[in-house]
């Protein structure tokens, strides 16, 4: 019976080259390096080119990446912080990942809130979890953590140790003795 069923196709992706080529054609002035993850095409850009790249990706008719899926920060330890952006186009159905590697001592990125309202909370989350600084964010408060907590729990250099949880707070809450 299973022979009569259609086979399960691989996740439908437009061929990776065409997207990259289209981007190169449309945005010749933005330097980037291409790669491939298990699911998506990956573009690596420098932080200073991010805004130009994403603006182009969003506004060019041929690309039309109108949907910011996700922003994920990654702590690459010695190489510094990396920010991953997942984009998708409802119009063309193609997806893209952008990797922005920050220099180890300068985790500054342009904020995408002007382009995508969706970027607001994602950026706040990445900022509080990793200490990334999104320049131009309208409301850069902590989102999930306490408002005055200035430590970044998802950093690799931050093992889950009790003392460090309370780092930056002069006195722990009553009843806590470490």
């Amino acid at each position, binding site marked *: 019976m299973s022979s009569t069923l259609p086979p399960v196709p691989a996740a439908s992706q437009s061929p990776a080259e065409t997207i990259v080529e289209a981007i190169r054609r449309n945005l010749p002035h933005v330097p980037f390096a291409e790669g491939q993850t298990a699911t998506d095409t990956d573009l690596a850009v420098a932080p200073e080119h991010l805004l130009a790249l994403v603006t182009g990706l969003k506004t060019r008719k041929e690309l039309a990446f109108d949907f910011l*899926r996700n922003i994920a920060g990654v702590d690459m330890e010695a190489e510094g912080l990396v920010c*991953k952006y997942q984009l998708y186009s409802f119009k063309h159905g193609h997806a893209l990942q952008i990797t922005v590697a920050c220099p180890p001592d300068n985790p500054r990125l342009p904020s995408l809130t002007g382009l995508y*309202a969706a970027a607001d909370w994602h950026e706040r989350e990445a900022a509080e979890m990793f200490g990334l600084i999104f320049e131009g964010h309208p409301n850069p408060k902590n989102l999930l953590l306490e408002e005055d907590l200035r430590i970044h729990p998802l950093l690799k250099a931050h093992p889950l140790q009790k003392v460090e949880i309370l780092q930056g707070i002069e006195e722990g809450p009553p009843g806590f003795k470490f």
Partner: protein
Amino acid sequence: MSIWPEERTYTHADGFETVDMTINIGPQHPATHGVFRMVLTVDGEMVVDCEPYIGYLHRGLEKLTENNDYRQAMGFWDRTDYLAGMACEGAYCMAVEKLAGIEVPERAEYIRVMLMELSRINSHFMFLGAFGADVGSFGTSFVYAWRERERIYDLFEEVTGDRMFPTYFRPGGVAMDLPENFEPRVRWLLGSIRQGIEDLDRLLTGNEIFVERCTGLSPLATDRAINMGVTGPVLRATGLPWDLRKAEPYSIYPRIAFDIPTGRQGDIFDRYFVRLAEMYQSARIVEQCLEQIEPGLVLNPKLPKNLRIDNGECYVRNEGTKGEYGVYALARGGNKPYRMKLRSPSFCNLAGLREMVVGNYVADAIIILGSLDIVLGEVDK
């Protein structure tokens, strides 16, 4: 006596001052579906500003995942969307399989899809019940929905051994095979579910006040919804037939016929109705799975005991019950993921709350929040 402790005084350009009142809704409030807090600034009954506060349920899911190996971390993930734990497990397993390149036996895929769709029905039942209560029908819808949820949970218990957090899926399949009486049991359950949906449909959709409260409230345009990152039934309510099961098919969904219900203007009623219609579609999917499923293995036999992944990166997305449930996974060797990020649909939908609420009545703010169908476990991770 301070009745108005959080007054905000605004000085206008012409030198006059007016006072706005803020109301704190949550974190303990019957209408916030968990520990969610929003501070509404009201002018009389009208909301002029809204500030959501989240994080009360933040459990450090991502950090925990990084510190447990691939199989251990499973248990944390079905506690994200705890109304539909199966769907979260499915997404997590798919991400790990994608990273490690593990094949899943066909029977396991069918089992997964069935359980995931039943989870979806379960979650939507929860929405219908809670939404009815938000609109104000004294718990009747809640109890109606609860009846069917109990039956679904009973089935889950029979299949997996647990009701809410089964930890039943494994990278490479599922933990154990189905029980003997599974098919008649599910067929009976589907009949009961259809009856339950119909009951709720008649109770809510057939009520003038319910329709009047919901129709035309806080309509959302498709463009704006996309820009705000809203997905799932809320996006489909704006009229865009976008469902990851069709748009980027995964698992065995391409073999199964189902429709994508859409709304017209993205108002609250459309969101409600899209979910109602989706439940029928899910039941349809489960029935087709029952017809197509065949005996066979349920777990990939070549699966190593201790899963190690050298290198890999993926962003796996599937259609969770609330929208696009995405898992970003990065492996750099070892038996633990280097980074796992959850793109939770509730989180992204909730980000648009402020824009939807401002300009409406306080009573409507509650409904709008309810129509987003958030799960705080998923929002706060």
